């Protein structure tokens, strides 16, 4: 199993870089994961990351992209509820990339 080192602590990740243990997540870990993806997180990223974490808390799954798009539009405002906005924030896919940084597993239905 691969590990990443954040703040002197070794954290297990799977072969695609997703956290193995959800409880290992912290904002520091998120920043580290974002860095390895070439992203610098700003407020707009955090809004989506926090939304994803809340969604996971409530439903035990990471939402599929179109579910995320719809739900983000409803919760954060219509201008954010479209895939263009989300892909600008997370170029490698709001599902895969944002979920990885949020410490969630890969969304079900995201092949």
């Amino acid at each position: 199993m691969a590990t990443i080192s954040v703040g002197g602590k070794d954290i297990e990740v799977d072969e695609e870089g997703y956290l193995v243990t959800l409880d290992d997540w912290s904002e520091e870990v998120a920043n580290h994961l974002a860095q390895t993806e070439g992203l610098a997180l700003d407020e707009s990223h955090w809004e989506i990351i926090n939304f994803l974490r809340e969604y996971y808390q409530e439903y035990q799954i990471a939402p599929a992209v179109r579910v995320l798009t719809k739900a983000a539009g409803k919760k954060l405002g219509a201008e954010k509820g479209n895939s263009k906005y989300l892909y600008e924030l997370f170029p490698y896919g709001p599902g895969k990339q944002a979920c990885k940084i949020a410490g969630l597993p890969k969304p079900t239905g995201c092949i």
Partner: protein
Amino acid sequence: MSEGTIKKFLYLNRKAPYGTIYALESLEVVLIGAAFDQDVSLAFVDDGVFQLTKNQNTKGIEMKGFSLVYNALGDYGITKLYVEKESLEERGLTLDDLQDVVYEDENDDYAEKKSILLVSRAEMGQMMETQNVVLSF
């Protein structure tokens, strides 16, 4: 998303959760299949009704729980969860023992509506006759 005619898909769930992998597998196929925009219904028959019980807490058995996922189905356009009355009764359960699964109706100002439809065995049998595809778990 998909062209052509919309078909009626039924996922038939007859197994209890956790003891076997069927319930979780079914749920994953349902979520993946939801991308194809078909007319999807879920049926909970026999031990399948145990999948919907409320307050499932898997901490003690160190397994990942998935009962809350049923509440997300509405987001995936799945709003019909048929539960068989006789199956509940044979197991000493009533509708009160199940989660109150709801969805938001986009065509009705996001009004919250019940997803669970309690039907008799006879009605369940008739409903099955109306389906184009039945996937069993």
